[in-house]
């Protein structure tokens, strides 16, 4: 089992895509923190000077808007990394990792290298285990690097702004990071399954992203109409991920009060996500085991 994993990691470390993704998540953390700080600060300066355009001032008046913006700015402090920083990694990371997972699996079919690997004595189960194992390792490195980047960005921006850099709680950040990493897993398994089934990276990316965005959007809308829909929606992926990550704003921006109130409890969410992951992997094993790998 170690030889296939070493083979996979040897190749993965020489491919551009994982390097680009790691650089992007690290860079994005810093850039987004800077953007949030500078854009909110600029608006705050306008509001304080009394020259803010009318559409910037909220219905509660200028004072309330200034207070709201000041609270938003304080989110960049290290004491809030487990919310803003980890939230950024969760939002961006899901999309990027779905793309990577589908590519990681689908290119083996597209390039025909699955045949070469299997003809060299690798078993189908070992192939799949290696693919998923290396994917999990990459997701771990990705999450850790992304969170480290946001921690660094938080200290950097807070220092620039003259904010208090105290209150950083490593345990809370690790806990939020762990829950975020866990919530990636079913999407990685799903994107891998679709890419394997369709033998195509493109199909895996497209279907993975559609499910990721559409499920969140549709369940959010349904529950905002009728809370009873939550019973069914809580058996899917999106709301369990939302519950586990405790991300304040969903990817589709549909976190209505109805929706938030009916989220499953985190333990149930973890179990449901684990069940889905097992189902996706079992389907992938079955499909790969029963498929003829034709030579042409």
């Amino acid at each position, binding site marked *: 089992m170690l*030889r296939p994993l070493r*083979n996979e990691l040897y*190749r993965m470390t020489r*491919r*551009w895509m994982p390097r680009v993704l790691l650089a992007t998540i690290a860079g994005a953390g810093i850039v987004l923190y800077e953007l949030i700080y500078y854009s909110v600060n600029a608006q705050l300066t306008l509001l304080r000077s009394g020259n803010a355009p009318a559409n910037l001032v909220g219905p509660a008046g200028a004072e309330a808007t200034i207070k709201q913006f000041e609270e938003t700015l304080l989110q960049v402090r290290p004491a809030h990394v487990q919310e803003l920083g980890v939230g950024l990694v969760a939002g961006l990371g899901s999309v990027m990792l779905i793309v990577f997972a589908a590519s990681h699996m689908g290119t083996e079919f597209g390039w025909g290298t699955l045949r070469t690997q299997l*003809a*060299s004595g*690798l078993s189908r189960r070992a192939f799949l285990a290696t693919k998923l194992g290396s994917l999990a390792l990459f997701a771990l490195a990705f999450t850790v690097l992304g969170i480290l980047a946001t921690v660094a960005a938080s200290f950097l921006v807070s220092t620039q702004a003259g904010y208090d850099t105290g209150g950083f709680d490593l345990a809370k950040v690790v806990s939020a990071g762990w829950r975020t990493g866990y919530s990636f897993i079913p999407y990685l398994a799903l994107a891998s399954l679709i890419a394997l089934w369709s033998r195509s990276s493109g199909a895996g990316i497209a279907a993975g992203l559609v499910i990721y965005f559409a499920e969140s959007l549709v369940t959010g809308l349904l529950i905002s109409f009728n809370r009873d829909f939550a019973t069914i929606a809580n058996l899917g992926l999106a709301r369990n991920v939302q519950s586990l990550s405790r991300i304040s704003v969903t990817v589709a921006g549909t976190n209505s009060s109805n929706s938030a109130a009916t989220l499953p409890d985190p333990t149930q969410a973890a179990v449901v996500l684990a069940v889905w992951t097992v189902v996706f992997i079992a389907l992938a094993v079955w499909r790969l085991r029963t498929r003829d790998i034709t*030579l042409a």
Partner: protein
Amino acid sequence: MLGDVTDDVVLRTSGLVKRFGELVAVDHLDLEVKRGEVVGLLGPNGAGKSTTIGMILGLVTPTAGRADVLGMDIATHREEALAGLGAMLEVTSFYPYLTGRENLTALAILRGGGARARVDPLLKRLGLADREKAKFRTYSLGMRQRLGIASTLLADPAVVILDEPGNGLDPAGQREIRELTKELAREGRGVLLASHLLHEVELVCDRVVVIQKGRIIAAGTIAEITRGGSSYEIVVPEPARAAEVLRRVEGVREVRATEQGLEVIAGPDLGHALNRALVGAGLYASAIVPRQSSLEDVFLELTEKETNAPPAA
């Protein structure tokens, strides 16, 4: 790995069948490759060569029958069996973002054992040392073929399968591959060579198996196969009557009219019998020229005959 081979037969298929729905791609195929010999697997496109190789490698699941590599059933001992087998598939597939050396190294890591130490010698042996640092995607078709062959030898296998190794190679390259294939057999390996380059097969193979529609239609040494396909060019007066006479001679399979006279497809050593029959009928040939058929002649004759044959009831 070579030292582990005690049985002479290193690769055997027994009653191998593969059906894709209604289509029978491989039909009860029995094949043997012994150590130290090169066996050619011939057949027109779609004859079932690649499917057969796929079943030997465990990539395609047989509908019936079995394939044994080094005495091990591929269905139950796939990993152990393939540890002693190297295969170059018809479409050589490697990672485009890796160099030639890196592709071999990655496979060597997968193979384990002493495979990693063989990367350098193989790059040299296959003439790839100069381009070992170039990405695979920049390789020409010929270089891809060479890398494919190098990858088959990483495990120092007792059995080598080469599927169309001459594809994309220039004449000098094809000659090198022929020499390499012979060398592999001399080293004691059993080689299964699937190729449509009949001249290549004729020069390299000890035995050939011709398949069509998944069935073996001829098998034997090159001499055995081509012996059955001798022909005679006969210049004779009254060719129509001569043809009637010759068709009655035992061993004659076909008589065709040509511009010069007649072409008689018959077994070997029948020249005297043909002459005696003509003389007996009062026909005196001015020339009876025996011609040994090439493998290509026989292959085309066999496969055309099979194509034109009515389907079995």
